[in-house]
């Protein structure tokens, strides 16, 4: 590090304080999304499982942080090997210093980019937990976190965002994680529901949300944090970050309304859970598009996203799987819509480093987006399946029936969420 300090003294630093402060703030905003997710999910489960549910999100902050700094960041963003993975050159953040790294962050210290990306790596596996809520073994979950991050998230991030990654080289556009975060977790959630199976009593026993006020607080924190998720993905402070911030907000608002109206028309009531879920669907949908589309496109993306995801969540009762908190319907379907919508609405005038979509005269982008979506589906599906099957054989995925009945809080953590 002494050599590095000497080099800095002689060469002028290209660190931009505005860019850097925005990336650091965005990193904190995205970090907040993980406990926000914990509360969003926590309010939707039964009270006997509230702590277990919150813990699954919260503990990702611990586990994935360590995985990321030890080797995950290197695999995802490190020097490319064969366009499919990064090398271990940056193991233990070796070489990841405080100078900018032109490949990813021309005006921001490399470590700032690293920690910003870390928060994405943390929240993505936590999203999956909604699918197997109220029945997954905590011990196995800790191992699942490490395996899924290493074998699904890190490679996929490399393909889409890493220098040399093959999906990036194809020209696919994913500004903040439609593929890497939402499709990957949405498809993993589908696999998980199929492998783990339904909750005991699903379909017979009532399992309504125990605290929607908690869920709404979580949704609000997610909305707030997402400004960093999408805005920070500009890796700079300025017009592109502004575009991402603005379109994120518009899409979310539109989707909250469109879900609420769709539910009102279909079921007769505008629900709080619907408005909150719609907002999240809008956030998911705009994620890959946020640095490439304009405000009116975002409005349409949100309107469609809200309605589409509302209908998607009814698939589970039609197809008979227990995706307890609708990860597939919101993240899988929403992320797919967002990635494809990017192929329709992308506009070079917004971001010259992007591309034009179908509605702007370019027919090739939508095909590239579709290919990238398909690849993410297949890869996440297959590797998640392998991971879960191995864990099922070795450690077991589900808690024993008695523990499921007593609730995860008591059985997995020896705690009670509430004492009145």
């Amino acid at each position, binding site marked *: 590090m002494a050599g590095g300090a000497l080099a800095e003294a002689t060469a002028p630093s290209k660190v931009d304080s505005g860019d850097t402060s925005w990336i650091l703030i965005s990193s904190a905003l995205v970090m907040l999304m993980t406990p926000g997710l914990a509360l969003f999910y926590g309010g939707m489960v039964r009270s006997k499982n509230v702590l277990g549910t919150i813990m699954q999100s919260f503990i990702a902050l611990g586990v994935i942080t360590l995985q990321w700094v030890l080797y995950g960041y290197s695999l995802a963003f490190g020097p490319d090997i064969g366009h499919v993975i990064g090398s271990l050159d940056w193991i233990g953040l070796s070489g990841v210093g405080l100078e900018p790294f032109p490949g990813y962050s021309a005006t921001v210290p490399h470590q700032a980019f690293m920690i910003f990306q870390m928060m994405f790596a943390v929240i993505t596996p936590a999203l999956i937990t909604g699918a197997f809520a109220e029945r997954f073994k905590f011990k196995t979950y800790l191992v699942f976190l490490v395996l899924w991050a290493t074998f699904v998230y890190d490679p996929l991030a490399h393909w889409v965002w890493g220098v040399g990654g093959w999906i990036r080289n194809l020209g696919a556009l994913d500004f903040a994680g439609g593929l890497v975060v939402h499709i990957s977790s949405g498809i993993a959630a589908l696999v998980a529901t199929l492998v783990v199976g339904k909750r005991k009593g699903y379909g017979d026993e*009532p399992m309504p949300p125990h605290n929607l006020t908690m869920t709404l607080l979580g949704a609000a924190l997610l909305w707030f944090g997402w400004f960093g998720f999408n805005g920070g993905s500009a890796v700079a402070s300025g017009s592109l970050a502004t575009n991402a911030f603005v379109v994120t907000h518009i899409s979310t608002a539109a989707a909250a309304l469109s879900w609420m109206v769709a539910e009102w028309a279909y079921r007769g009531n505008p629900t709080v859970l619907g408005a909150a879920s719609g907002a999240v669907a809008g956030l998911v949908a705009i994620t890959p598009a946020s640095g490439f589309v304009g405000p009116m496109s975002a409005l349409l993306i949100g309107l469609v996203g809200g309605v589409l995801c509302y209908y998607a969540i009814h698939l589970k009762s039609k197809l008979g799987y227990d995706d307890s908190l609708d990860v597939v319907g919101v993240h899988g379907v929403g992320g797919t819509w967002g990635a494809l919508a990017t192929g329709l609405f992308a506009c070079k005038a917004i971001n010259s480093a992007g591309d034009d979509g179908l509605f702007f005269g370019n027919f090739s982008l939508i095909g590239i987006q579709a290919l990238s979506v398909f690849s993410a589906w297949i890869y996440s599906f297959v590797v998640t399946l392998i991971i879960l099957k191995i864990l099922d054989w070795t450690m077991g995925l589900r808690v024993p029936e008695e523990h499921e009945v007593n609730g995860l809080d008591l059985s997995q953590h020896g705690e009670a969420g509430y004492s009145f």
Partner: protein
Amino acid sequence: MKKIEAIIKPFKLDEVKNALTKIGVQGMTVTEVKGFGRQKGHTEVYRGAEYKIDFLPKVKIELITSEEMVTQVIDTIERAAKTGKIGDGKIFISPVEEVIRIRTGERGRDAI
């Protein structure tokens, strides 16, 4: 001595309590309960899932009274708790073997 148990609509509790204290009732025990009779429940919908809620929140009042007071107490409860709509509740009367005041050890009528 008789035990009077009344299941009533929760919002009627204050009215019933005030009416009873006016006629000289000096104590009662109240529990929050769930139940149904002929009153139908309602349906709640969370995302795609429908939940039929059969059990409705009610309040149970229990009090012990002397034989002479029984009719007056029942009439008072009936009047105060009635709305005329389904779900107003029921009153049950049962005999009580013994009543003891813990502080003083008094028994029987003196303990009520």
